[in-house]
Structures are given as structure tokens and as C-alpha cells.
């Protein structure tokens, strides 16, 4: 292997570092109408009357649309493969507005100033109703977020809009209550994770224009071009064939762009007016009306025998989907499936959940997708159980962790852990942190205390039996290859990773492969880049396509050599006769031959779906220093050891890990979408919603302990999401070890720690 497992530079690197115009707004037609949305000031209200005449008269205004102008068929903005599990609960504009920031009217005009003025001139009279905010009282509350009759769940998931219930389920194996009653040690606690913003640097944005065939071109910063085509078609009530979606470079996604946040508004404007338009979300809009992480409250009961073997886990998750149900029935599943599976001796488990509607900004996909929340809860509970037994939490994990060939209880997507190096991850992490020879807490004698914390995590690699990867590879007449993809490189480097895989499969230099992505008219179908699917799923499609193309190259080469295909071989540069290596034709000659008098097409399109979702595994360990007086936390050192199977590009895998850990540190320590009692978001800019800066992190050290996953390309599994899962539980544990204060509600702020320390002192 020349390229796989090598730290190859990204193929688009030089365009990015020199600031070339490669993003949506750089490429949007210069005469685009500016599109903005008037947003509701109320959390739950009905538009009584809406007057747009004065707004329309503002010079430069081209159109103003209200709920009366849009199609009346409900749809979802969630980018998911069939069977689509999110409920159809949206209209482009609805008379019923369900959160502060919900769309009331669309305005398009020649200049931003004209549009801003017109927005102010729209007069709306609202019939204001009492909102539902409390997740505990949302279910079966008489106030309904979705009272409408045409609310539709396409897959029966227990959701019922007349109960404010988006989804509900119960999964059980064995008699949890009985096993728990037999356990020598048990804990029961409730953990609360908050909504967080993905906060990718490029906000949501879309530009639209009509082509010469009367089709709608949607140029968008999205992770899901093919889903966008379907969603826009449905929202506008036009055939999806009328829509073509193009994805340029994307300035980050982290799941946010797995929901169609910005597309439908300019799409509607361009479809109605025939004119190019664009909608560029401000950071403010990206904070108040986007698609943050689901807030979850998770109650865990865990029981162990006297040796520290975990015998039973009981997990109940209450998830807050907010005003709309995007990704809600699916995210919540991971809170149990990816956490219970970490404990292989579990004889009995139960996982129940409710997902409720409330009148806040709708939640959506964010890296980790429910696993992050569930792993915080279960890892914290197990750490608490270890302390109750007087056992080293790392030791308890060693006794119970997944092992290769062993079971993953409650995780339905592989029959057993086929590839797993969690044991080596733990051993290496302990070695790097010098865990065994250090105390979990250390008083520094200057008012500061240090603590060590540990957590394990697992995720999936694609959605088993659902996700589709696509690859289309062809040989060109100059002997170069074009690899067309439908997956979406959002900075992660998948275009490069796919080229590495193709180059090794075809034994050709990477420079000889042009990667193209994504245009729904040209690219092969691909579910898109989410669910930690791309390397694992699309990577295999690339392998399959290259293997078949090699055969075709041999077939044409054999024809040129006037021999049978079984007599020839291909070394990447030449097709040659096995018996006489001097009889050969070059790749260039074959490429050229394919362009005249030829019946063997040198192009292969392959799809790949896996019935499995083999989990990547990791161990995170952290050392913190806490100021006992102020509660201030310094993250001194974070050690992460990851088993993602074969890292196709070790550089990109390492940076994924570092980036995921820093996002996780933000989630653990300060990121929190907060609301006023009227449902207005407090943190509507980077001024109030702080994401980690380079001053907020200490050392981060990453290492890999690779297993080999047979079902993945060159043994690869996933990495993108896994890496955000350990900071929350590891930091909560380290802070506990430092201070004795256990914080079960994120973020773990200095206030909570300082107050916790005070309370402990008062108890004495």
C-alpha cells in the first residue's frame, strides 16, 4: 500500500490555504436576490393577520411570501435515507409558529438594505398562546406543539402529536430489576446534557438559480446533496427531477448540515421568480433557528457484583426535540445502543425513551448523535459505581470493556465485536497518562487540586443496512482517472481519503486521479456524509468500482494484445501477457483506445451498503486542575487512544480526534444553549455562546491502536463522531476526583464546582 495509512496532504489543500473562492457565497451568482426570513418573536403563536403591502413597496423588493403562498404538504428537513424516520411536521411557512425564531415570512430583494427595511415593514398580528418549555411536563400536556391533523409519522415509532410525543420505545433483555436486586453494588442517577451548537465556521447558506432547461439549481453548503434534492422537491411540491443540487467546498458541518436549514427559502424564491437568489445565514440566525444537539436527561441504574462485574444497566432517556422532529427518533436510540454496549458482561438491560416536542428551536444532528449524551450518562454512572466500591474506574472498565470476538449488549448492528482493540487503547492510554503510578487526585497546596478522569466510548460506522455509498470511476484517454463521488467532504478530507483508496486499488499515483464531488446530476447516488459512514461505506464502493475497472482494463488490454483476458495481468501502468511480459500495452494506450471503435466502456459505477455497523472504540483520559476558591478549571492534558480500524490517513484521523476532543471539552465545560422564560435564546452570538479557543485547551495527545475490520476498506472503520464522546464523562470524573464534587448536569461550570465545594464544606 503506497497511499493507504499514509499522512497524505489533502488534494484541495492549496486552494483552501490560499483563500481561493471555493465556497457557496464565493460562487453564488453576483446578481442573486438577497433572501431573508421574518422570524417569530413568540414561542407559540398563530399568525392572525399579516400585512405585506408596505414591505412590497420598498424599492428593490421583488417578493414577500407568507403562509398563504406556500404548498400545504408537510415534510421534514432531516436528511435521512429511506425509510425516513423523522415526522413530516413542517411547512415552508406555517400560520402556527412554534418557537422564537420560527419563519413567518420570506422577503427577497435586490439589496440587503432593502430586504432589512422590508422586514421591518411587515405588520403581523399574532394570537399568542402559552408555550411548553419543560421537558418533564411536555408529554401529554394539554398545550400541543403540533395540534395539526396532517402531522405524519411515516414509520410507526410510537410518536403521537396529540401527546407532544415525537417517538417512544422500550427495549429489554432479561429481567433488569431482578438482576439489579441481586447486585452487590448499585447506583441510580440522572444526568442532564444540554443543547449545543455545532458552530461550524461557515454558517448555513444556499444560492439558487434556474438553468436553460427550466430546472432549479441549488448550490448549497450541505452534507446531504441527494437528500436536499428530495427535500426541496417535496417542500416546493415539484418533482425532485426538477432540482439539481451542487455542493462546493463546505466550511464545516458536524451534522448541522445534515438538516436542510437554509435551502428551502431561496429555492422557493427562485422557483417563484425565476431569478437567482441566495440566503446567507448570519451567525445570529445560526444560533437561534438552526439545528443544535438534542438536550437529553438520562437516568441510569447500574449494578455490579462484588468483583466489579457490571451485570445490569437500565437507561431511560428523555430527549427534547424542540419545535420540530428532525433526527429525533434516531438520535435518541444511540443514547442507549452506544452506551450499554460498552459493558460486555451485562446480563440484563433495559433502554426506554421518550422524545418530546417543546416550543424551542428544533434539535438535529450533531457529531455523536445521541451517543455523546448516552455515553456521558452511562460512563459517569459506572465511574460512580467504581467509587462506591472503592475501585479504580479504569480497572472497572478493564474488567467489563468490549473485547474482540465478545458481545456488545444492546448494540444490534453487529453480531459481536468483530474488530476491537479497546483493551490495547486502555493499556496505551494508561501508559501515556502514567495512570497506574499516580493518585486520582493531588492537592497542589496552592489552593489548586488536580484530578484524573477516564471514559470509554464507541460509535458506529454507517447506519447498518441503510446507508449507501457510491463511486463512479472511469479511465480517461490520457490514462488518468476520474473518480466521481456523492459523499461530501466538509473539511474532513474524504475526497482525499477516497483518492488514496482508489490509487492503491489501481496502483496509480494519486495525482493521476481527479476527484469530483458533488453534483446530483453527475455524481453517483450516495446517502451523504453523516453517521460516520463515509470512509467505511463509500470507501468500499470505491474499492469495488476500482476492482471491476481493473478487469475492464484487462479486457480491453487483452483485446489490444489479441489474446484472452485470462492471459493478461495489470500492474497499474501496463496490461501485459503473463507468459511474455514484453507483450504489453500502456494505460495511456488503453485509455486512448477506449475513445475509438470500442465496445468495452472503461467506466464503473458501484454502490456499497453494509448490513453491519462495526463500532470504532476509544479511551479518553484527562488531567484537570481546579481552583478550589473560584471553581476555575484548566484542562492540562488529554490523552486519546483510538481504534478506528486502519486509519486511511493518519494525519486526518489525528486531527479529527483533536478537533472532536476540543468540541467535547466545549460541551463539557461551557457550551450551553440557554433560554429566557419567554423562550428567547440568550446565547445568540459568539459573544455569549463561547466555543473553545486555543487558550482553553492544554495538551492533547492522540495515539492509535488499530484493529482490522474485515468489512471495511483496507480494514477501516469510522472516526468522525466517536472522538467527541469521551470528554464529558472523563472531565466530570476528573473534576470529581479533584474536588469531590460530582456534576451531573452539563456544562460543568466553575459556579457549579465552587458552589459544590462550599456545600461539601457546609456538610462538614
Amino acid at each position, binding site marked *: 500500500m503506497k497511499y493507504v495509512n499514509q*499522512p497524505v*496532504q*489533502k488534494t*484541495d*489543500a*492549496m*486552494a*483552501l*490555504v*490560499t*483563500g*481561493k*473562492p*471555493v*465556497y457557496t457565497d*464565493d460562487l453564488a451568482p453576483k446578481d442573486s436576490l438577497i433572501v431573508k426570513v421574518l422570524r417569530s418573536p413568540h414561542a407559540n403563536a398563530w399568525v392572525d393577520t399579516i400585512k405585506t403591502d408596505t414591505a412590497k413597496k420598498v424599492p428593490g423588493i421583488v417578493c414577500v411570501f407568507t403562509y398563504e403562498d406556500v404548498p400545504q404538504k408537510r415534510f421534514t428537513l432531516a436528511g435521512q435515507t429511506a425509510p425516513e424516520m423523522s415526522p413530516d411536521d413542517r411547512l415552508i411557512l406555517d400560520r402556527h409558529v412554534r418557537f422564537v425564531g420560527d419563519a413567518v415570512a420570506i422577503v427577497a430583494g435586490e439589496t440587503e438594505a432593502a430586504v432589512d427595511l422590508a422586514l421591518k415593514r411587515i405588520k403581523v398580528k399574532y394570537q399568542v398562546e402559552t408555550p411548553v418549555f419543560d421537558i418533564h411536563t411536555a408529554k401529554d400536556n394539554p398545550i400541543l406543539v403540533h395540534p395539526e391533523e396532517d402531522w405524519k409519522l411515516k414509520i410507526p415509532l410510537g410518536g403521537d402529536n396529540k401527546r407532544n410525543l415525537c417517538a417512544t420505545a422500550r427495549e429489554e433483555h432479561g429481567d433488569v430489576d431482578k438482576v439489579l436486586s441481586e447486585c452487590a453494588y448499585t447506583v441510580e442517577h440522572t444526568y442532564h446534557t444540554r443543547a449545543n451548537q*455545532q*458552530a*461550524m*465556521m*461557515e*454558517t448555513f447558506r444556499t444560492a439558487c438559480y434556474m438553468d436553460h432547461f427550466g430546472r432549479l439549481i441549488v448550490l448549497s453548503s450541505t452534507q446531504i446533496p441527494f437528500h436536499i434534492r428530495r427535500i426541496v422537491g417535496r417542500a416546493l411540491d415539484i418533482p425532485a427531477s426538477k432540482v439539481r443540487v451542487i455542493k462546493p*467546498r*463546505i*466550511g*464545516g458541518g*458536524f451534522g448541522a448540515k445534515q438538516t436542510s436549514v437554509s435551502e428551502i427559502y431561496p429555492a422557493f424564491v427562485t422557483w417563484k421568480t425565476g431569478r437567482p437568489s441566495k440566503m446567507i445565514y*448570519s*451567525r*445570529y440566525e445560526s444560533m437561534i433557528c438552526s439545528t443544535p444537539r438534542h438536550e437529553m436527561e438520562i437516568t441510569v441504574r447500574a449494578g455490579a457484583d462484588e468483583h466489579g462485574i457490571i451485570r445490569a444497566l437500565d437507561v431511560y432517556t428523555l430527549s427534547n426535540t424542540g419545535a420540530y422532529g428532525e433526527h429525533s427518533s434516531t438520535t435518541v436510540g444511540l443514547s442507549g445502543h452506544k452506551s450499554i454496549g460498552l459493558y460486555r458482561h451485562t446480563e440484563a438491560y433495559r433502554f426506554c425513551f421518550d422524545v418530546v416536542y417543546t416550543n424551542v428551536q428544533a434539535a438535529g444532528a450533531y457529531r455523536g448523535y445521541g451517543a455523546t449524551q448516552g455515553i456521558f450518562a452511562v460512563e459517569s454512572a459506572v465511574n460512580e459505581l467504581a467509587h462506591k466500591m472503592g475501585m479504580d474506574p479504569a480497572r472497572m472498565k478493564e474488567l467489563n470493556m468490549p473485547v474482540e470476538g465478545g458481545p456488545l449488549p444492546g448494540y444490534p448492528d453487529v453480531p459481536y465485536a468483530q474488530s476491537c482493540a479497546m483493551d490495547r487503547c486502555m493499556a496505551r492510554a494508561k501508559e501515556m497518562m502514567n495512570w497506574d503510578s499516580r493518585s486520582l487526585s493531588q492537592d497542589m497546596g496552592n489552593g489548586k487540586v488536580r484530578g484524573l478522569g477516564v471514559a470509554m466510548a464507541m460509535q458506529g460506522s454507517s447506519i447498518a443496512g441503510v446507508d449507501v455509498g457510491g463511486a463512479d470511476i472511469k479511465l480517461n484517454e490520457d490514462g488518468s482517472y476520474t473518480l466521481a463521488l456523492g459523499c461530501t467532504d*466538509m*473539511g*474532513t*478530507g474524504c475526497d482525499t481519503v477516497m483518492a488514496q483508496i482508489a490509487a492503491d486499488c489501481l496502483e496509480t499515483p494519486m495525482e493521476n486521479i481527479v476527484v469530483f464531488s458533488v453534483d446530483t446530476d453527475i455524481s453517483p447516488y450516495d446517502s451523504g456524509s453523516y453517521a460516520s459512514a463515509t470512509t467505511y461505506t463509500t470507501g468500499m464502493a470505491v474499492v469495488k468500482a476500482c476492482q471491476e475497472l481493473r478487469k475492464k482494463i484487462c479486457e480491453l488490454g487483452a483485446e489490444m494484445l489479441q489474446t484472452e483476458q485470462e492471459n493478461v495481468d495489470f500492474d497499474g501502468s501496463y496490461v501485459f501477457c503473463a507468459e511474455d511480459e514484453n507483450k504489453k500495452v500502456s494505460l495511456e494506450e488503453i485509455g486512448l483506445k477506449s475513445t475509438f471503435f470500442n465496445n468495452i466502456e472503461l467506466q464503473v459505477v458501484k454502490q456499497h451498503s453494509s448490513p453491519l455497523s462495526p463500532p470504532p472504540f476509544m479511551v479518553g483520559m484527562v488531567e484537570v486542575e481546579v481552583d478550589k476558591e473560584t471553581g476555575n478549571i484548566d484542562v492540562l492534558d488529554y490523552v486519546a487512544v483510538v481504534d478506528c480500524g486502519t486509519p486511511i*490517513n493518519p*494525519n*486526518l484521523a*489525528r*486531527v479529527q*480526534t*483533536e*478537533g*472532536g*476532543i*476540543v*468540541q467535547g471539552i466545549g460541551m463539557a465545560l461551557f457550551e450551553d444553549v440557554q433560554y429566557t422564560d419567554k423562550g428567547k435564546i440568550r446565547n445568540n*452570538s*459568539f*459573544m455569549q455562546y463561547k*466555543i473553545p*479557543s*486555543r*487558550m482553553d*485547551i492544554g495538551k*492533547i495527545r492522540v495515539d492509535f491502536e488499530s484493529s482490522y475490520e474485515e468489512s471495511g476498506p483496507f480494514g477501516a472503520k469510522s472516526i468522525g463522531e466517536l472522538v467527541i464522546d469521551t470528554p464529558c464523562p472523563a472531565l466530570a470524573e476528573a473534576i470529581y476526583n479533584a474536588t469531590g464534587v460530582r456534576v451531573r448536569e452539563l456544562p460543568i461550570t466553575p459556579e457549579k464546582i465552587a458552589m459544590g465545594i462550599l456545600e461539601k464544606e457546609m456538610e462538614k
Partner: protein
Amino acid sequence: MNIKFWLNGIQRQEEVDPGMLLIDFLREKGCYSVKRGCETANCGLCTVLMDEKPILSCSMLAVRIDGKKIVTLEGLQKEAEEFGTFLANEGAEQCGFCNPGFIMNVIAMLRELEEPDEEQIKEYLAGNLCRCSGFVSQTASILKYLNYKKTQEEA
């Protein structure tokens, strides 16, 4: 208002709306490397040089560049490529959206500080946010670049 200024070494005279922000003006003039990541001067994506000093173009009116020299990454392509190679060799460029503002500030830092250490680097660049990389690889690329420059000078 009519203003005279230098943009990437070329003197220009333009009519600007008094309320126009520098970032929007520069993008209108084709400097697409200048990116907006927030509206509150928190992210550093829109960093450009004004008379050699790094400034946030989202927080400055375009009229204030009257008589000044403005440099964007379009005017520093060679430097961007040179340092950018180090960034890319670490896999640190990631989505690339924060790269232009970050690299502008790195260039400003290297012109201002002689041999900055890790702490000084972090402090100087504290206002440049990045959501992809977790910063570690960015710092590593700067240190490696500094080392390369030093060996070059010594040679």
C-alpha cells in the same frame, strides 16, 4: 463617499456607501478570501492587514481605509502557499473556512514577533477560532514553519 486606498499594492479610488463594512466592500472588490464567521468580532475569519497591522474587517467601516494600505490573502499568495504547505502537511487546514483569517494573523505575528514560543503563539492567535482542528495541529505547523525558516536563514 469617495476614498483613495491601496488594495494589495494597487492604488484605487472608489465611491463607497458610508455605512458599508470593510468586509463587504472587500468581497465586493473580489477579495473572496475574506470570510465572515460571526458579526461580533469574535472569530477572526475576516482578518486583513491595514498599514501592516491585523484588523477585523467586519468591525470597520470601509470609509476608514481612506489613505491606508489594505492587504488581503489575495495579495499574499506566496506567503500563504509557503506557510499553508506546513499547515496542510499537518492536516490542519481542514474545512479551510477559517484559514485565510488565521494565515493573515500568522503572517502578521511572524512580522511582529521574533521567534515566538508556543505560549506567545497561542496568545497572539487567541482571537482566531477554528471548529475543526482543535488547534493542536495549527500550533504544530507554526512551530515547524518557524524551525524551517530558521534553518533556511542559517544555511
